[in-house]
């Protein structure tokens, strides 16, 4: 089970992270991987926190829950504060600098990108921030074949918005290639 990859997508309800996790899982299927997708439900889903997990493996996946994330996406401050302490030093951590700021321990590899603001400013549509985040995430982790992922995104997009969503995904790649920043004050520090 050494190939098990656990991806945790976290943020606020309404940011489309559950959909993102489903799209990612579907892409993984198309990429011939074993995959399990789960999500936390709760009255909290009413505007509160949102958390979903995707597990990839070449082997059959038994235990479906994320225990040690290998990739963590945080799309708001609350989730960053909550999940950061739960990951190990090897975890790839991606944060949306639009909403996340503050300091964190030096042992973490946090990469910060202006995900939502780019979606709004570059594409004019905040709602595709989730697909943009998937672009960043996949660029950073290389988990799924990029082309297959792009196609999956098209398939899942509401009618007429396939290309916009793909653009967002690509923009994620560009952001990643430009390199992570410490914009908006996300800085590595010993936790207080």
């Amino acid at each position: 089970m050494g190939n098990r990859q656990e991806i945790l997508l976290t943020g606020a309800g309404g940011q489309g992270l559950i959909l993102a996790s489903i799209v990612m899982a579907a892409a993984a299927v198309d990429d011939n991987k074993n995959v399990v997708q789960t999500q936390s439900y709760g009255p909290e889903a009413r505007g509160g926190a949102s958390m979903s997990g995707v597990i990839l493996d070449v082997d059959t996946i038994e235990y479906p829950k994320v225990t040690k994330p290998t990739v963590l996406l945080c799309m708001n401050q609350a989730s960053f504060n909550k999940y950061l302490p739960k990951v190990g030093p090897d975890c790839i951590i991606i944060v949306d600098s639009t909403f996340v700021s503050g300091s964190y321990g030096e042992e973490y590899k946090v990469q910060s990108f202006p995900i939502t603001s780019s979606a709004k400013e570059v594409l004019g549509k905040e709602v595709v921030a989730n697909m943009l985040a998937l672009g960043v995430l996949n660029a950073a982790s290389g988990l799924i074949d990029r082309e297959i992922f792009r196609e999956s995104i098209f398939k899942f997009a509401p009618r007429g918005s396939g290309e916009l969503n793909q653009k967002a995904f690509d923009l994620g790649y560009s952001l990643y290639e430009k390199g992570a920043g410490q914009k908006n004050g996300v800085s590595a520090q010993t936790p207080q």
Partner: protein
Amino acid sequence: MPETKPVLMQGNEACALGAINAGVRFYAGYPITPSTEVAEQMAARLPEIGGVFIQMEDEIASMAAVIGASIGGMRTLTATSGPGFSLKQENLGYAIMAEIPCVVVNVQRMGPSTGVPTAPAQGDVMQARWGTHGDHPIIVFTPASVYESYYLTIAAVNLSQKLRQPVIVLLDEVIGHMREKVTIPEGKLMVEKSSDKVPSDWKPYDEKGLTPLVPFGFGHYYHVTGLFHDQYGFPTGDPPQVERALDRLHNKLEKYRDEIVLTNYIGHKEPRVAIVTYGCTVRSARAVVKKAYWQNRLPVGLLSLQTVWPFPAKEIEALAKQADVIIVPEMNMGQLVGEVERYARGEAKVVPLNRYDGEMISPDQISEEVGRWL
């Protein structure tokens, strides 16, 4: 033949799809977390294939409507969770008594009462057996994967039709809500419609054995009631007839036991420590056995139960003769472990492993317990 491609599917969705592929064309239900996706899938798909979806005023009415539609000749399904399952009990008993086929899905959540509506648990296992009043037989399947959710629903529909017996698919929140890769095979999924050929001496409750349900509206004027009845369906309180009627209900399950009781064993042939479990907990157990036996060749095995009722008594008896210790992980305070203990008959030590905080039992928890007894 075209290649059958794998797809990503949710457990609840697979259940709905399985039902449809097994010929279900009628769904009546009332929404409740974490089962609602079954209804939503049905609401989307049934109208497209000429089926009926109806959201009833409550779970009692849903159960009633499903029975009514079955008497009309449709294959039917309803889905709910704990609180709704409690409400369905009276009419579930009716379906058993009147021998009306139907499938009831209960996607378990954390109880008792409203509990934690979104947290997983396996707390309705005993209720599934004993929830309605009076002696009654029941069949209960417990899928452990999205694929099992699919095919056990199909099995449920077909068995229900064949035996004229309600069947329960007892999912849990983990399996119901999880999405995973599945490959849906092609092929025939519906057993013959038992009512296609009605013998000339047809009786609705023939004492000789299984007898097809002839739907209403075809000129066979018979009576259906929840009272004890004779083989023509008419009420009776006559003691010998009452006894025969109850025997009839139970005997059909006895007779077809081998088709009904599905279990699966992996691991060491002569295990010292065996795990017995069902539903999502099977996954954690399987992770443990894979490592302990496949990798480390330890004398460990797993009997996973796709059918929990009728209880796989024979299988447990046999296992207890092999193993020193049987560990029974359950996401409740210990329910099926009682039956395991009963049928272990003192031959193996039976160890409950319970978790009831609304979280899944992890492989680590199980392997720790296994380690303790190796």
